[in-house]
């Protein structure tokens, strides 16, 4: 298969997957018992609202209507406040990206560094200690780590704010350097929570990948011909071990999205995860379906990007379907 044909096939498959996810979520939420009215609302009002939202129609009809609207780029309006779903999601994306971006940077810088360092010192004291520490952090429930960090750095030491994305009094109105710093300041704890757990996983992956490569003949050859250790590690081992890293990069998206629901709730962070969670509790169907749509797009795009990057980085993988690579890390 040529590269273009492969890419086209993957793109079609990706669209199909997203379509299936949206269908699944749509059906799930519409067959769930209950209506999107609070319990204290009058029955007549609730019936009227149900009619207005088109929920009295049959399920297939609602589904077709939704798809037609979706094809026009319209994800519907929120039941809770009437805002277009697209606008509501767009408003949260900068925050989610800010949090995910910061977490990813910490995850990969720290994780890569630790993984390489451990591999160089394999089975010596620093490796064993770091191995146990990363295993421990990797096993922590993210929401509990978040509470812990809040307790220590937010409440006891008062180094960082305990919630929100910016100074609630000044920054909505004033745009200044203070607010930029302030926003970064608010990002530290939630990003550290996600980033630390991620970094522990990355370090374990990277260490294993480095050691796998270390057994290869070309590494022994490089050493035998007298290259300095530094060069062997960085040029021969690391470059080949980065393939695992690429795979992990694509898989980090879903982790950040799912971890984000809890973390955003704990830190009162106005991102997409919290929007989705609140919408589920309010039975705000269009918002739920919309966020699920965006989330699945991110996951599928992450997988596709991984495969493309892997193909670019390693010619051996270009021909073969990449499902085996994913299977190993899924």
């Amino acid at each position, binding site marked *: 298969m040529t590269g273009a044909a492969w890419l086209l096939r993957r793109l079609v498959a990706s669209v*199909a997957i997203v379509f299936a996810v949206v269908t699944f979520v749509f059906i*799930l939420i519409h067959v769930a018992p209950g209506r999107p009215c609070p319990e204290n609302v009058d029955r007549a009002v609730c019936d009227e609202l149900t009619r207005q939202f088109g929920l009295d129609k049959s399920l297939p009809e609602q589904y077709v209507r939704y798809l037609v609207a979706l094809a026009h780029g319209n994800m519907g309006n929120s039941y809770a406040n009437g805002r277009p779903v697209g606008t509501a999601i767009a408003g949260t994306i900068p925050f989610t990206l800010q949090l995910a971006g910061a977490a990813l940077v910490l995850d990969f810088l720290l994780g890569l560094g630790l993984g390489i360092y451990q591999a160089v010192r394999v089975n010596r004291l620093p490796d064993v200690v770091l191995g146990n520490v990363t295993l421990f952090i990797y096993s922590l429930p993210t929401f509990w780590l978040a509470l812990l960090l809040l307790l220590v750095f937010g409440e006891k030491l008062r180094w960082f704010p305990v919630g929100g994305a910016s100074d609630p009094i000044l920054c909505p109105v004033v745009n200044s350097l203070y607010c930029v710093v302030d926003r970064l300041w608010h990002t530290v704890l939630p990003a550290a929570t996600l980033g630390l757990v991620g970094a522990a996983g990355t370090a374990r992956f990277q260490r294993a990948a480095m050691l796998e490569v270390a057994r290869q003949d070309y590494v022994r050859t490089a050493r035998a011909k007298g290259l300095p250790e530094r060069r062997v590690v960085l040029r021969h081992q690391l470059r080949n071990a980065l393939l695992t890293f690429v795979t992990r990069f694509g898989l980090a998206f879903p982790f950040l999205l*799912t971890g984000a629901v809890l973390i955003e709730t704990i830190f009162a962070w106005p991102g997409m995860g919290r929007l989705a969670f609140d919408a589920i509790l309010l039975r705000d169907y269009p918002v*739920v379906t919309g966020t699920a749509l965006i989330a699945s797009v991110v*996951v599928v795009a992450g997988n596709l990007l991984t495969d493309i990057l892997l193909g670019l980085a390693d010619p051996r993988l270009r021909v073969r379907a990449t499902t085996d690579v994913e299977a*190993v890390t*899924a």
Partner: protein
Amino acid sequence: MTLGAWLALFVTLVVTAELVRALRHRALRQERWRRFFRHRTTTWGLGILVFLVLVAVAAPLIAPFDPNKQLDIVHLKNHSPSWTFLLGTDVLSRDVWSRTVYGARVSLGIGALGALVAVALGTFVGAVAGYYQRWIDAVLMRGVDVGLALPRIFILLMAVALWDGLPFAALIIVIGLTSWFGTSRLVRAEVLSLRQRDFVVAARALGAGSGRVIFRHVLPNAAAPIIVSAALGVGNVLLLEASLSFLGIGVKPPDPTWGNMIADNAPSIYTAPWSTLFPGLAISLVVLSLNAVADGVRDALDPREEAA
């Protein structure tokens, strides 16, 4: 803590130590299981798991108080850890130690059963897809693709939040049903390579039916990835249940799980951190031990990883 509770705890510890020692002793005779016990972390992990399972089983003996009883809401609310209340009391004056001990039943139970559902389903789908190939494989694996792209936590939140008051068994099944996709891919990959091997071809040539070939010849040789993903699966399910309970929609109060204990007490974490910290520590310990044991199993059953 009463004297009886201390005694029960002590006995549990001794039994754990003896069990692990006996296991280890037997294991040393066999090469592959010697590899399992080579890492000290794995041995400790196994020990912690055995201990917690025993604690869950013997909960009524080890817990000095009724886990749901509010002892004295006026005087014993958020009492700090002491000899009477080993891990303190929570915001409703319930004994945190007793709740943690009983919580082990629910949390470990959900973890084990959920993972069992997930691994069984994943193994079955993976084996069928890998063995029969052709259109069965194509259909199943496209389904798995969709499953992996589902924002799992959203789906779980929806299922649990919208079907209010989901019974315990349903919660386990829902968690299991959304957790098998990764396993099925692993198993499929393994089966694909195993079915070409001589012993499988030989079994077929001797006239063994596909059921027999799959269960007697193929799957036993794919045990390593299945066991590893089961061990990791228990941890994952436990974390999921904890997350759901933390968001207030998992197991309904007052029955304690480690997740809803954290949720109940998180608001008072600044004044009474113990009632939040200890259940979280319990979750971490279990997941940590499971990860360590999974590493050990991988070492024991997969000689390729030996140097790592």
